[in-house]
Every structure is written in C-alpha cells, then in structure tokens.
C-alpha cells in the first residue's frame, strides 16, 4: 500500500507501483487538470509539485511518489497571482499546456522572486506550448512577480 498526500488530503494506492503519478492523478483521483502530453518528461504538460518542487508526473512512479506531498493545479488556492497574470495577459490559446506552465511558473517564483528573461527561459523551456504562447507566458511571469513583490 502506497500512501501519499495530494492537495493536503491523505490518499492510499494499492495498484501497480510502476504506474506514473500522472495516471493515478487523472484516472484514479479524478484530478484531470494535470495533462498528458508526451509521457517522457519532454513537454511539461503534466507538471505538479512534489514536496514543493516541480516534477513531471508522467515520469514519477507511484513507488517514487510514496510518502510525498503532491500539489496539483486543483490544489492551488485560486486565484493565485500567477493565474491572475495569465488571465490579464490573455495567455491561453487552446489551454491544454497551461496548467503545466502555471505549475512550473509558480515553482519558479517560489525560488526566484524576480527572474530575468533568461532565467524564465531556463525554467520554462521544458514546457512546450504547441500553440506558441511563450511571449505572453514570459510577460505574465514578470507581471506575477511584480504582483507578488
């Protein structure tokens, strides 16, 4: 039996310990805000926080998630300044990548209160947006940093 905390709630899991956290969150816990994009830690659509750090949930097995505290987009108290900045900058197109982008951006701003463009690029380049909203994402992160200061 694997135990973990998701968005502050204790959960247990008795299925295949190889199952990636992503599929546990989506199919078992019903938390579908975390998206599947590649399954290979290449796109960032599945980004969640594990013990406060951003991880690709498609590449963290339930075994490896045991005992950890997971935060998904549903566990972010809405509206977070990053979400507000996303709305103000009218970032999303299709929106599919955006929860992963937002989780990555929140994690960035937790460790770096005022990231430069280069630091944003560095932190966000694991998150693909096929619709191509990068310019607005960068602007929204700067805006959120200002709000949070």
């Amino acid at each position, binding site marked *: 039996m694997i135990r973990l905390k998701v968005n502050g709630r204790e959960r247990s899991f008795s299925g295949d310990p190889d199952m990636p956290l992503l599929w546990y969150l989506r199919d078992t816990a019903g938390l579908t*805000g975390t*998206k599947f994009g590649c399954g290979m830690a290449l796109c960032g659509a599945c980004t969640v926080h594990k013990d406060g750090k951003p991880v690709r949930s498609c590449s963290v097995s339930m075994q490896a998630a045991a005992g950890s505290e997971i935060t998904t987009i549903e566990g972010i108290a809405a509206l977070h300044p990053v979400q507000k900045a996303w*709305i103000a900058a009218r970032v999303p197109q*299709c*929106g599919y990548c955006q929860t992963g982008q937002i989780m990555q951006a929140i994690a960035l701003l937790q460790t770096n209160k005022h990231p430069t463009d280069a630091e944003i690029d560095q932190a966000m380049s694991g998150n*693909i947006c096929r619709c191509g909203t990068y310019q607005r994402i960068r602007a929204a992160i700067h805006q959120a940093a200002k709000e949070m200061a």
Partner: protein
Amino acid sequence: MNRIQNVSRRGFLQGALASGVFVLGVRLGARRAWAAETAAPLIDPNLWLSIAADGTVTITAHRSEMGCGSRTALPLVVAEELDADWSRVKLEQAIGDQRYGDQDTDGSHSVAGSFDDMRLVGGMARAMLISAAAAQWQVPASQCSTQPHVVLHAASGRKLGFGELAAAAAKLPVPAREQIKLKPRSSWRYIGSEKNTLYDVPDIVTGKAVFGMDATLPGMVYASIEHPPVLGQAVKSLDNKSALAVHGVRRTVVLDPLTPPHGFQPLGGVAVIADNTWSAFKGRQRLKVEWTASPHSAYNSAQYRKALQSSSRNPGKVARNVGDVDAEFAKGGKLIEAEYYTPHLAHASMEPPVAVADYRNGKVVAWAPTQNPQAAQATIAAALKMNKEDVTCHVTLLGGAFGRKSMPDHVAEAAVLSKQLGKPVKVVWSREDDIRFDYYHSVAALYMKAAVGADGKPTAWLQRSAFPPIASTFDAAARYGDDEMAMGWNDLPYDIAHHRAENSPADHHVRIGWLRSVSNIYHAFAVQSFVDELAAVAGKDPVAYQLELLGADRIVKLDGSDADPLYPIDTGRMRHVMQLVAEKSGWANRAKVKGRGMGFAVHRSFRTYVATVVEVEVDAQGKVHIPNVWSALDAGTIVSPDNVRNQFQGAAVMGTSLALYGDITATDGVIDQSNFHNYPVARMNQAPRNTQVYIVDSSAPPAGVGEPGLPPFAPALCNAVFAATGRRVRELPLAKTKLV
C-alpha cells in the same frame, strides 16, 4: 429556461436555404466535398440562443474551440446584435447537428462563413424582445430601442430587462431576415473590441476546462491501440499472453483492417482494454503482433524524394496559365532556376487524439475533441453500419488540433470498441501514436524557373509542384493536387506577362491531411524564397523588388472556378501590408552586419493578406536565433483583435518549429519519429523572442486568422538567414543546410 419558441419556422427556413452559406467562395480540400453534403444553417434564434427569466443568455457555439477563438468569436457576434451584456452570456457547445450548417472548424473560415448568419440570429432575437416590450407597453415597436440587456421606450422612460421579456418574446413569430436592421459598424461594442477575451480562460488556468482527454463516463474502460506500423497492414498473428498478465488489463480486441481509400476509417490493429490508461499502455508494450504485407512497405523517404523531384521537373497539369512562358523562355536571355523541398510534418497538438464513446441500444453517444462533429457522426455511422441520426457527438474543448482533429478516425475507434465490449470506452493515443499515425502534411518538391529582363524583373515565370495530395485520403488513385492549387499556387499576384503554374503527380504512402495553412506552407516557401533569389540576382532590395513586381493596384484575374467573388485578390491590400511591415520593422534602416539579417515574405491565404519580417542572428556554430518578428495583416473585419495577435504570435512559433526542426520521414513504410525528442517543436528559448503584430483597420468582410500567419514565416526566416550568411536555404528544415 425559456427557449424563444417559434410558430412559423417553415417560411423562415426556406429563406435560409435560398441564400445558403456555401456560396461563400473557397471551400478547401475535400472540404469542398464535405460542404456539398452539409445543409445551410437554420437561421432561427430558437436554435441558437435562449434567455432565462433571470436574464442569463445562453448562446450556442457551433464551432469547435481548439485555441483559435471561434467558440468565443461567433457568440460575441450574436451578443452584439442581440445587444446583450456579455458578462451575462453563457456558452453552450453544440453537438453535431446539421441544423447548424457546416460545423467543420477548419480552413480559417469560422468567422468568415458564419459572421452574417450570427448577426442575423442576434438581430432577430433582439427584434422579438423589442416586439414583446412594445406589445406590453402598447406603443409602436419603432419607438423602442435597446441598451445592453434592456429594452427601453425613451419617450416614457420605461425599461424592461431581457429576462423579463423572454417568456413573451418566445411566443412571437421569428421575423423575416429582410425586416432585421443590423447595427451600424459605428455602434458595435464587442465586434473589434480590444477588451474581448476567450470565454474559457478562467477554467483553463484553474484546470477546470474539460478537454477530450478529460471526458469520463461511469463504467468506462480504457483502450490503447497498437496500429499497423505500415498503412494498409492487417494483423496476421497475435500473442497477447504477456499483455493480459499486466495488472489492470482486461482483454485485447483485434480491429478490422481498413479498406482503401482510408478516409477517416480507423486504422485497425489490436486494442488493449484496461481499467486505466497506464495499464492499457503497459499491456500494449507486451503484445507480440505479426502484420501482413502492404505495398506501402517500400516507402523510404530518401528514395521517394528523388521520384518526387523528378516528377516536379516534368510538365504537369496546368493550374493557371497567363501568356506563353515557353515562347518567352525560348527567346533565351537570362534564365534562373531553383528547386525547393519540404518534408512531411506531424501536427503534434499538445493533446493527442482521444475520444470516449458509449454504444447502447443501437445508438452511440460520443465525446470528443473534434473539429468536425458531423464528420464524426458520419464516420461512426459508416463504421457501425448505422444511421448518422443515431449517433450523437458532443464536442469537448480541443487541446490543439491544427487540422488533425478534423479527421475523426479516433472517435470511430472508441465507438467500434464500445459496441464490441458493451460498455463505454475511452481510446487514448500516446504521443508516439500521434506522431507515427498522423494524417501528415505532404512532403513537396517544387521547381521554379524565370526569365529576367535587363531591369532584373521576370518576363516569364514557371512554377511546378509535386506532392502526395490530400485527395489520396478519399481516392486511393489520386495523384494530383486539387484544392491545394487554390492555396498559394494558382494566385501569383505579380504583374508578369507570362506565367504558368503546374502540378505534377505523386503517389501517397501514408495518410495525408490538412495541417494549419496546408499547402500554403510549401507554396509560399517556394514562391517567396524564389522571388528573394531573383531580387538578389537583380541587386535590388527584396521589399522594393516585390512592390515593383506587384505592379499597379488591381484585382488579380483568376479563372472563374477559382475566383472568390466576395474576396477577390486585391494587390492594393497586399501592397499595404508590405509597406506597413516594412515601416514597423525599420526595414529601410536595417543593419547590414555579418551574422545578423532581416528577411521578408508576403502571402495571401484564407483571404487574409500577411507580410512578415523576421530578424535572425546566426551564431558562430550556425545556430539561428530569432530576436524579432513583425507581422502586418489585413483580415478584413476583426472580431477580437487581441486574439488575432495571439494567433499570429503563435504562428511565428509554429513557423519556427517547421522551419528549424520539423521533419517526418519513413523507412520501409514505418515513420521514423515518435515523440518530442526526435520530432522537436520550438520551446521558449528557441522561439522568436518578440513578435509584433499589426492589424490593418478594415471594413472588408471578415477573413481567416488561425492559419494565414504561418505561410510567410519560413520563407521570411530563410531569407533573413540569406541576408545574414549569404547561404540560400532551399530545403526545410533549415538544419539540412550548413550555415557555417
């Protein structure tokens, strides 16, 4: 909630049919065939909106939302003419239903095709609300007017809210379209407003938005399908023992192979059915399948390229002819030739294909991220030999699509499996499935030849293309482009006395489909690279040279069947976007230093004129950086300007992906790429840093905005690389050309 009820629908319907929307010019690809089967929409407010007693207006969005904004834009147009307060509007996504007319959200024609109809729908409902108020006040309707969400009688100062009037309005007949007085442009509050935002953004940023990947049904099982690696193969033998041993796997199902032409049919293969997505994926990896032979097993990209290029060098079918190029070439003088080559591309929308379907009592209900729910209905009906009317297709949000999700093979897979299993099924494609079993953008070879006079201007211009056509998806023997010709090939806008555009035959070995801006990608790449080459030979500034070739402002003459009467090719509008982008980018004063350069391209597609300047820096390793992009566009009337800018910024990123990286190849019929490590797309640190978009203020009919930003990007980028390095890029992706 009161639907506004209509008692005389019949007379009204006839009116709608008489002026069907499909006279609206270019229908693209097999879209033309599809549109012919699609009825005109029913222009009746009862179908499109409802008003609750509390004033909440619910408007039906009949187009799919894949990130281009159609779902928001058309209801905004309804709200405008209804004079509704947008903050009190809710959207309801339409199921597939022919009463909405064409619902195929592609070809950048959602707003262009439905703008007038949506205005009428809103205007009719507003007239009914006014009539209801006038009756209650016993005053002539002509003395009443509206303010947002309110009808008022100015003389007496009386007011009634839309919600208060809904029940009475619902009992009134729908007025004839001739009686509807639409708002003048000057009174628009929403159409063209900088404040417009996409309806779904709040749900998107909180993770509440429901995409196809998020659809679930009680009792649902999950399926992952091992498709035949080569098009046309079928299962020869299957060993599913170790797959069945995987925790959570329930069974496997062998699917019927397709019969050519493949159309939107499921590909066949072996489905692994499981309790969750992961178990289905894992079980699939343990399948041992042997496949039958397929003639497409001989498809090898390197070899195919030679055949394609050789076809493109030979005379083909004439798509457009002006004057006599052969006679002009025969005169001798300076002849310039160039060949261009672009590979297959995959869509790679962030959400891979996925669908949920439930077959029950002879009927199917499906939930899918589809661009075309009516095609999904038809495809499911054909696969299960049932009536289309017995198939309901709900449309979720689409996690990107770019044309892929106008082809509903994945939706039919879910329905077929649900019938076989007797329970709801969710079919989930992995990224590998998405890249390896796409409806690919065509590989293309293009051959260009011009005779140039003493002034450096072409006196004759010949262009030939060869590519496996989209028609091959619907007719296995098709070898020539059809509607592709109208996508940047038969409409060269230059004032050249002798011009011929041709298309040469090519075989298909994979499924070919529509990808954002379709054949405009390779056509614009060839034309806009070649004209840049001619400018260089002439020693002229590329923008000035193109302005010269464009000649006097005029309407470009096309053959009757290709002409688009509502949207003629207007070189004045083209000139304007060229001059605008040159001015905004500081083209005239651009720095001319080694390793840094600006490139220009202009292209009209989906009735929209776009000129783009790309600035590049090529570093000592030959790596290309893109600090700036400027795009100027004239898309006629615009509903949501900020969304248009977002579309064009996104097009610059997708343009970067296809110019720098995109390359799908096959070995023995099997696609070589599988995920983002070997089919890379632009990331934040590789994308243009800053894309500025300039929209021409225009009252012309609305044109497309989702696709037209893409075609000029790659040639502008490659022309910039030439300016920076002196290296001419004649093949995409650019990585194939050594820059240092």
